[in-house]
């Protein structure tokens, strides 16, 4: 409600200064009155004109009057004036005739708007590379060559073929599919982009795995140059794909030919042994890269921000969301090619930057959402409405939703059953609210997906319809039904019936619950004084919150002291000293050095911590915490490290470059070995920064002495994104790159004091012996010991010791615990600019909590009943320390003991209820009668 959408709009001008801009917009006519359109779809049904659907990338068709896609916001039709017969030929107007609400307006002139805003955030996104210019790949000529994004539509349940994977030429299921990587990326001939697009390797691996789900036994082959699985959990995903039979071929195919009868394709490539091969496939997918959006140049010119030569918005390594013009910020793929989590992180960071400059005017233009008064349902008999979601074909493709709906109608107290294509869509929310009012429903069952992602949405719908939000039950017939039993539809349908019956049984016993509110302590705790922690502390303080920064050492700055430059070439030290000075002199920041967090109690909005500072203990209260304890360089045990003085780690080479460049200039050959301590069994992750770091240092060495032989021995060179330009530069300067494999690592020996490195050259197939003066090991990043923090905050940690985020795509800076946020290396290895971005994003997310004076808690909480006799069994099992024993004086005048539950600490896990032998404690929303009703319902089928 505090977001106003301006669709079909472009920015045409901007005036003013940071804090007070006037932006003009041109809103193209929609020709449909959004206030009248009810998205019934009659117009599109009657529209005689079919055009390729741009949402489905032309794979399917849509009409000239259309909605962008079925879950889009706003769910209102629009007329495409370039396709509409009335605009082209002057007659038709079928939509106007059939529209039941008279929403069509062919005379819609559009609108010019002038809006006053304090800041601007640019997020125009990217466009996929158009591979038509690469004629040898035959895209556009050969029907069975598609782009990666088109293949997404082919796989998608909401796509033109409802998720039945077919190839375009003859609509048959493909059994052998090839992916060609780096199409339009890492290109040196001017027909593509020179940079790496970052995401294509992983999307190809994902598509190969999903293909195997669609077509069991399908053969999938990925032709790649370097497989860049460089982010969190990506390496394991890649290794898992190899184990599941996806074939990875290191080659860049030079051409694709049509198969016999124009069906299928023939891929021609030069294998690693130098021989030309041909292989037949049913379908080829071009993993097209990302490039700047069409309008990027115009937008940048209009608003006056600088672009880099690749038409991405120029930023610095120290503030990756600030553009060249103050008050205007950038996020998403408009800044550089990036994956979803990075785009989300930068978006939060940009939002925070904008918010910080406008902090004076916070809350001046926003409104609070209001709900109608809650209906008292205590006197009413349960009247249950069941809404069954088809989820496109995600559910309906396996489960017979019609049969399920018919069955649900037979259940007691069910008044209404409806089946929706997407129950989560906006129009269905309106429908649910309308049905609640019309039929006086007082309990709702949603048979769809997981409450984890969608319960809040349905709770809100109930509130809008005047019902208590806790009168909704969800039956997860997708994740627990159609997804896990996709090969057994009959069983899945039977199970869905059981689930719906259980949900209905429980819903009948649901009762209204009230949410308690706790006051928010508007202070923050930041753990860790590296760049991420410093940035987070400074940003929080700038937003007006008092911050306590805890650093275990006696010096702020962390690993950044060991770095020379960012990959963009900016000096790190001036930035770092400036940042430290700002933090240490900020009146709102209290810096505690040699300090350690000893204990934490409380929960989001109201934590209390005990910090030991140089042996002394202090207490602090805080509403949110940002964890930024960083990581460290792995000290290798291999390759003669520590045994030979000229075997260095990357950071040791940095120090040498800083302090004794002359020594390096005079030295002979230098060899880098990549992936030391990364991407190995037991440490199955990529440390991300090391490839770029080595390439940068190789360039520095070549600049010191152009004649010096420099070798980089690598597995997959992961100079992702615009960093690819560095590796191109290194090659131009004569750095020699030799790939090796995990099975055949380089061997390092010493003879007469000289180092010898032996590696097998894949093209020659023979060992190559190098005698370097220096051997640099690109050792990976290790997390610090996070077990202490995990213990204190109960936050999640992955098997490598990195703290886990709440959702890998959509909540990349929130930890698994509310009110605790992550930034920097403790989350995953990352370069400086991403650590800064994550810290800023963490502050934005934290600010959402701190901006409130009180915080609503969930109502699913434990409550002690009169049966409690103070045995204390539950106190021992409570993992959140929410239960305590207390003495009290009973009616009989004697002293008794009983348990009390702290609502702010309780997470409603239910362990206490399960432990209690006498119904002395219960959890609201999961009371014993409710659970019994569910169990009885499921046993009914037996």
């Amino acid at each position, binding site marked *: 409600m505090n977001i106003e959408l301006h669709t079909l709009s472009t920015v045409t001008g901007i005036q003013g200064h940071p804090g*007070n801009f006037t932006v003009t917009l041109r809103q193209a006519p929609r020709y449909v009155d959004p206030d009248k359109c009810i998205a019934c779809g009659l117009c599109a049904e009657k529209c005689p004109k079919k055009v390729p659907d741009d949402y489905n990338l032309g794979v399917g068709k849509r009409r000239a009057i259309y909605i962008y896609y079925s879950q889009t916001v706003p769910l209102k039709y629009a007329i495409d004036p370039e396709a509409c017969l009335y605009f082209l030929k002057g007659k038709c107007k079928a939509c106007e005739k059939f529209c039941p609400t008279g929403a069509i307006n062919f005379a819609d002139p559009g609108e010019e708007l002038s809006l006053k805003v304090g800041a601007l*955030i640019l997020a*125009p*996104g990217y466009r996929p590379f158009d591979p038509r210019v690469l004629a040898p790949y035959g895209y556009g000529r050969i029907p069975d060559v598609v782009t990666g994004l088109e293949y997404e539509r082919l796989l998608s349940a909401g796509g033109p073929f409802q998720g039945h994977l077919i190839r375009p030429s003859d609509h048959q299921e493909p059994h052998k599919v090839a992916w060609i990587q780096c199409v339009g990326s890492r290109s040196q001939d001017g027909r593509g982009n020179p940079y790496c697009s970052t995401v294509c390797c992983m999307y190809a691996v994902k598509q190969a795995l999903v293909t195997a789900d669609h077509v069991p036994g399908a053969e999938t082959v990925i032709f790649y140059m370097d497989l860049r699985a460089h982010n969190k959990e990506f390496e394991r995903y890649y290794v898992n794909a190899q184990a599941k039979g996806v074939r990875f071929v290191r080659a860049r195919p030079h051409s694709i030919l049509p198969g016999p009868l124009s069906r299928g394709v023939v891929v021609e490539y030069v294998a690693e042994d130098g021989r030309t091969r041909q292989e037949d496939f049913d379908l080829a997918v071009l993993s097209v890269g990302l490039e700047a959006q069409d309008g990027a140049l115009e937008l940048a010119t209009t608003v006056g921000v600088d672009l880099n030569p690749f038409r991405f918005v120029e930023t610095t390594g120290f503030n990756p969301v600030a553009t060249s013009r103050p008050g205007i910020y950038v996020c998403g793929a408009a800044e550089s090619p990036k994956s*979803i989590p990075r785009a989300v992180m930068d*978006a939060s960071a940009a939002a925070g930057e904008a918010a910080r400059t406008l902090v004076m005017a916070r809350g001046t233009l926003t409104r609070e959402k209001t709900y109608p008064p809650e209906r008292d349902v205590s006197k009413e008999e349960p009247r249950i409405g069941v809404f069954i979601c088809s989820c496109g074909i995600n559910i309906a493709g396996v489960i017979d939703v019609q049969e399920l709906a018919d069955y649900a109608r037979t259940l007691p107290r069910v008044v209404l059953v409806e089946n929706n294509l997407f129950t989560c869509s906006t129009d269905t929310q309106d429908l649910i609210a309308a049905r609640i009012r019309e039929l006086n429903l007082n309990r709702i069952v949603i048979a769809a997906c997981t409450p984890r992602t969608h319960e809040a949405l349905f709770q809100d719908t109930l509130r809008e319809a005047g019902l208590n939000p806790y009168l909704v039950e969800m039956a997860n017939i997708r994740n627990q039904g159609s997804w896990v039993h996709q090969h057994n539809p009959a069983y899945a349908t039977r199970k869905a019936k059981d689930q719906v019956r259980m949900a209905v049984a429980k819903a009948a016993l649901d009762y209204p619950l009230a949410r308690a509110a706790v006051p928010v302590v508007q202070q923050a705790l930041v753990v860790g004084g590296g760049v991420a922690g410093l940035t987070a502390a400074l940003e929080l303080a700038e937003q007006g919150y008092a911050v306590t920064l805890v650093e275990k050492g006696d010096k702020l700055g962390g690993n950044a002291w060991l770095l020379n430059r960012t990959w963009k070439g900016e000096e790190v030290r001036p930035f770092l000293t400036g940042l430290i000075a700002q933090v240490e002199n900020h009146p709102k920041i209290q810096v505690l050095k040699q300090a350690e967090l000893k204990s934490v109690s409380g929960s989001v909005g109201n934590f209390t911590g005990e910090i030991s500072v140089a042996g002394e203990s202090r207490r602090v209260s805080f509403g949110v915490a940002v964890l930024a304890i960083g990581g460290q360089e792995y000290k290798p045990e291999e390759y003669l490290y520590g045994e030979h003085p000229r075997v260095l780690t990357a950071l040791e080479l940095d120090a040498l470059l800083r302090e004794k460049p002359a020594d390096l200039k005079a030295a002979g050959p230098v060899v880098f070995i990549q992936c030391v301590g990364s991407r190995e069994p037991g440490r199955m992750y990529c440390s991300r920064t090391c490839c770029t770091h080595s390439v940068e240092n190789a360039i520095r060495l070549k600049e010191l002495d152009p004649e010096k032989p420099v070798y980089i021995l690598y597995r997959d060179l992961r100079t992702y994104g615009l960093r690819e330009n560095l590796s191109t530069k290194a090659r131009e300067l004569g750095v020699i790159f030799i790939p090796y494999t995990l099975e055949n690592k380089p061997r390092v020996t010493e003879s007469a004091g000289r180092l010898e490195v032996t590696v097998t050259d894949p093209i020659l197939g023979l060992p190559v012996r190098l005698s370097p003066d220096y051997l640099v090991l690109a050792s990976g990043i290790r997390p610090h010991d996070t077990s202490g923090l995990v213990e204190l905050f109960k936050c999640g940690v992955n098997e490598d010791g990195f703290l886990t985020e709440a959702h890998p795509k959509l909540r990349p800076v929130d930890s698994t615990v509310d009110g605790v946020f992550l930034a920097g290396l403790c989350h995953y290895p990352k370069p400086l600019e991403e650590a800064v971005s994550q810290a800023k994003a963490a502050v934005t997310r934290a600010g959402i909590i701190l901006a409130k004076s009180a915080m609503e808690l969930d109502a699913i909480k434990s409550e002690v009943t009169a049966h409690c006799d103070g045995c204390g069994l539950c106190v021992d099992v409570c993992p959140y320390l929410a239960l305590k024993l207390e003495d009290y004086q009973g009616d009989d005048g004697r002293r008794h003991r009983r348990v009390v539950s702290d609502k702010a600490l309780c997470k409603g896990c239910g362990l206490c209820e399960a432990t209690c032998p006498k119904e002395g404690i219960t959890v609201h929303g999961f009371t014993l009668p409710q659970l019994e009703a569910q169990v009885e319902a499921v046993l009914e089928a037996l």
Partner: protein
Amino acid sequence: MFVVHLVALAKAIGVHRNTIRNWVKSGRLPCRPGPGKGLVFTPEDFARLCQEFHLEPEALAPRQVGGGREAQPRPAARLGATASREDNMTGNVVGSVMVVGGGIAGIQAALDLADSGYYVHLVEAKAGIGGKMAQLDKTYPTNDCAM
């Protein structure tokens, strides 16, 4: 010196013109009567006035008289420099942000801002928001539905 019309000032503050006259007489308004219904202020007093009543200096259409030889550009610009440092920090900052682009990045930025107390104008070139992510089937590495 600035000359402001009595009626314009009364309108801007929202009181009757006689009230203004009374204020001038009682000395509450630091100015002296000028030609016609004009009131003459020193630049400092004028700035204080604008600040006290939250007035836009330009809205009063002040005429600059005397001291014009000091090579000052336009009165509005000068006022901006003297009077509105404070003013700029409070009154002139707009509590809304425009986000250009309704893909996942734009949507996230818009939501974060709206949740933090800022009004958001989300601008999208297409007929609906969602962007490229809405076109994806599943996301790696968890194979969650992109929608």
